[in-house]
């Protein structure tokens, strides 16, 4: 290589330098193009996210105007391990809420998707109806459900479902009532995800199972569900995150001002927002929001760890 034509060397160097310079120019252009998005994320996501960790280390003064006091992890321990700010109760309520919402909305979503996965006349109308909840606003849906559950003019009381105290102020029924509305709201997305999954299953495999003698029940549980498991897993993760973040409907259906202590609807995010807006306690709110973040992250990682090994990918 060292002896092959001295004259060829410069041209080879030019040839290799050209593409490298072009690549560098292209890279620069690429960074330039993503800059606006990065800037927006930095300002509205990364900065608040990291600043939140800083806020959690400072105690908010009891009187506005005084400087915040650095307390380190002391505040976090106090919030998380005592009942001073209702954190343990909120945590339990959040978990109960997620357990109420996620499995039911996944099951109903899957059921509706299977029911709508046929070539029937007018099935498109049903598909549109089933998926419509995903486009309706939380606020509108909450107002509608609030009206349905209204003890005087509501539909449920008209049906005879009218406990005392009324549904949304009833210690037993308030959380399930909000859960029902949340299930309804998530159903559209659950239905869409499940439908998309079903449509990607090859018909031939289910036909093979029919010829092999499998009943509709067996085909569903032994063929459809296992093959749909990646989809179900995805819906489970999305649904769990969605349920962890449910706030609007609770806030609208059960305003914080009227919240009796025994009404267990004080989910974490609700507690965070109210600690911030009603008590102006930035430090405590920061601690609880980090706790919610860690909880969501942990649950998602756990789901991935334990469920993904049972999920059947690949054909």
């Amino acid at each position, binding site marked *: 290589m060292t002896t092959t034509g001295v004259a060829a060397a410069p041209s080879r160097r030019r040839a290799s330098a050209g593409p490298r310079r072009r690549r560098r120019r292209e890279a620069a252009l690429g960074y330039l193009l993503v800059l606006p998005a990065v800037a927006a994320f930095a300002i509205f996501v990364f900065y608040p996210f990291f600043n939140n960790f800083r806020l959690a280390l400072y105690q908010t003064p009891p009187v506005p105007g005084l400087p915040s006091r650095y307390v380190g992890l002391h505040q976090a321990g106090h919030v998380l391990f005592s009942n001073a700010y209702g954190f343990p109760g909120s945590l339990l309520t959040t978990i109960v809420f997620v357990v109420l919402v996620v499995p039911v909305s996944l099951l109903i979503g899957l059921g509706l998707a299977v029911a709508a996965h046929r070539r029937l006349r007018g099935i498109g109308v049903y598909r549109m109806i089933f998926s419509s909840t995903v486009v309706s606003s939380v606020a509108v849906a909450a107002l509608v459900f609030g009206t349905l559950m209204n003890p005087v003019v509501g539909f449920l009381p008209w049906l005879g479902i009218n406990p005392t105290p009324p549904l949304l102020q009833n210690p037993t029924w308030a959380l399930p009532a909000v859960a029902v509305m949340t299930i309804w709201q998530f159903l559209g997305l659950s239905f869409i995800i499940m439908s998309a999954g079903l449509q990607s299953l090859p018909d*031939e*495999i289910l*036909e093979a*199972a029919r*010829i*092999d003698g499998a*009943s509709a029940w*067996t085909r569903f549980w032994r063929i459809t569900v296992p093959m749909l498991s990646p989809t179900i897993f995805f819906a489970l993760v999305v649904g769990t995150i969605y349920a962890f973040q449910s706030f609007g409907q609770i806030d609208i259906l059960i305003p914080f001002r009227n919240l009796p202590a025994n009404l267990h609807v004080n989910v974490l995010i609700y507690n965070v927002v109210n600690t911030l807006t009603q008590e102006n306690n930035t430090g405590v709110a920061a601690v609880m929001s980090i706790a919610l973040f860690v909880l969501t992250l942990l649950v998602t990682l756990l789901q991935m760890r334990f469920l993904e090994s049972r999920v*059947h990918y*690949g054909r």
Partner: protein
Amino acid sequence: MAQVIFDGVTKRYGDVVAVDDLSLSIVDGELLVLLGPSGCGKTTALRIVAGLEELSAGTISIGDAVVNDIDPKDRDVAMVFQSYALYPHLTVARNIDFPLRQRGIERDERARMVNEVATMLGLDPYLERKPAQLSGGQRQRVALARAIVRSPQVFLMDEPLSNLDAALRVQTRADIVSLQDRLGTTTLYVTHDQVEAMTMGDRIAVLNHGVLQQVAPPQELYALPANVFVAGFLGSPGMNLVPGRLDRSAGGATVAVSGGTVEVHTRVHLPADPDAAVTVGVRPEGLFVDPHGAVGATVTIVEMLGAEAHVICTLADGTRLVVRQESTVPRPAIGEAIKIRIDPDAVTLFDTAGGKRLEERE
């Protein structure tokens, strides 16, 4: 074991007729190939036997029973799909076991049957693998194993070889034939590949546009095609079809075609009209490049296939002719004007109007 009978079977999708008044019997133990171009209704016909499609008219029987309203699982048929349709989440062993399990067969018996079939098809080393970890040929054998493990009355095979590479296809073709021969199970085999049909079928049923064209053993289908469609579809390359006009002025019979005349035997029932429009059909092996030939043509391509060569030429009116010759015979040059001799014994005549073959006289 059972016969399968289509009786006036019709299947419509809206205005489209996929299968049109099909009547066909598959004899007990026979391997019958349904052959036709894509969209000819052959797969639909197969799915009708499986019970995956409902009939618009007619009856379908398996054994002695009409099965029109019987569920696929109760028809005692097994199907091999083009895509194999293996259960991706189950191991090979569980895939083969699946139909047995649905029949409530006892566990030990099932294991014995799965092992027996796996050994028969050389699948023992792969029993604990998932389908995704197998090659195309192995998956294909799993699909076959799943079909034969429960000894059904009828095998239904929907282009089972079309996803395999050429060498494996030839091998598997032979394997399926010997397997079917050994098991003696009535088999309905769908393909668009006429070589596959010729080599595998006891009989071949040719379909076009949902209409049955001809049912016959391969050799008869090749030698005596019922119409121009069958003549052109079968054979590789298919039969040469040259439009012409009958000429009986000289006492005998000749057909005037573009660039010459073709002598024909008068053994067939010739049309009453002395100058009727007829189509001359000749297999490529019935044509010879010969300076004394009666038809002039121009060579367009010469394809060399090793043992033989195909001389592709065109007549004056643009009709394409393929001449098959031994590779030892000198080949003409491209663009050369040649004469073609036609063996009168190799000529099949078709009525141009209806496309039907003119029958031989007794």
